């Protein structure tokens, strides 16, 4: 196995996630799509940690960091989402548009 297939997989997964994050209306699905993009990045990190001239475990460590940060992000994101839902009775991205002029 070579490096490219893994990177290609990462790119495709990232693209799918980006598409979801940009088109889905449900905030939870958007959040899920973001997690997919993080996963795509992780694939790259781990792939580079395995292949390359001097394989090093640092890539895996960073993937672990990203996993932990993703978990934190989901926790906070869902907290915000619940508060938002309670306030607006909606989980639609379109309704979260107070941050404009």
């Amino acid at each position: 196995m070579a490096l490219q297939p893994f990177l290609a997989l990462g790119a495709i997964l990232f693209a799918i996630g980006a598409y979801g994050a940009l088109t889905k209306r449900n905030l939870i699905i958007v959040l899920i799509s973001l997690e997919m993009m993080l996963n795509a990045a992780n694939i790259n990190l781990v792939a580079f940690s395995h292949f390359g001239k001097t394989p090093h475990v640092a890539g895996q460590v960073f993937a672990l960091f990203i996993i932990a940060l993703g978990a934190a992000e989901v926790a906070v994101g869902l907290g915000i989402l619940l508060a938002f839902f309670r306030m607006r009775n909606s989980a639609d991205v379109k309704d979260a548009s107070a941050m404009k002029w």
Partner: protein
Amino acid sequence: MFFGMPLTGQTVSFFLLALLIIASGVMLMTLTKVMHMAVALAGVFLGVAGIFILLGADFVGMAQILVYAGAITILMVFALMLTQKGDDTESPEASTGRSLLTLLGVVVFTGIMLLVLRGTTWPYSQSAVDPYTQPTVVLIAQSLYHTYTIPFELLSLILTAALVGSVVIARKED
């Protein structure tokens, strides 16, 4: 031989997992029922975990299953259930034009990425299945507690803050 690659267990597993990931991802984008999406999501996460294990990163793979497939998916399901309003289908899609535009952008992006990947000479990879001299758990532990001690501790701080913060944010106003 398969696309110029030897047909080993690794190759086959990779293509199966890639198929699982991409199929689940596409399903996630196309399905309308949120619970179905959750299943597709689990598929993506498990597939990624499989890729990790395939790459010899068994600890990261397990963490991926534990955190993403186990915890985050369930959390998402909970959130979906909590925010449902009678109908269990997802709220209407963005406008078709918008979706097509996004699709175009995404396809262009991916296309360029793939072209670049193809055109770049990567520092060549050795073919050994397991490039590490020690179990990855040991390597990761040493790395975490020597090289990355400060980031590791900061991470625990972030997790604590996220825990407390999400509780505070989501708590009902009394």
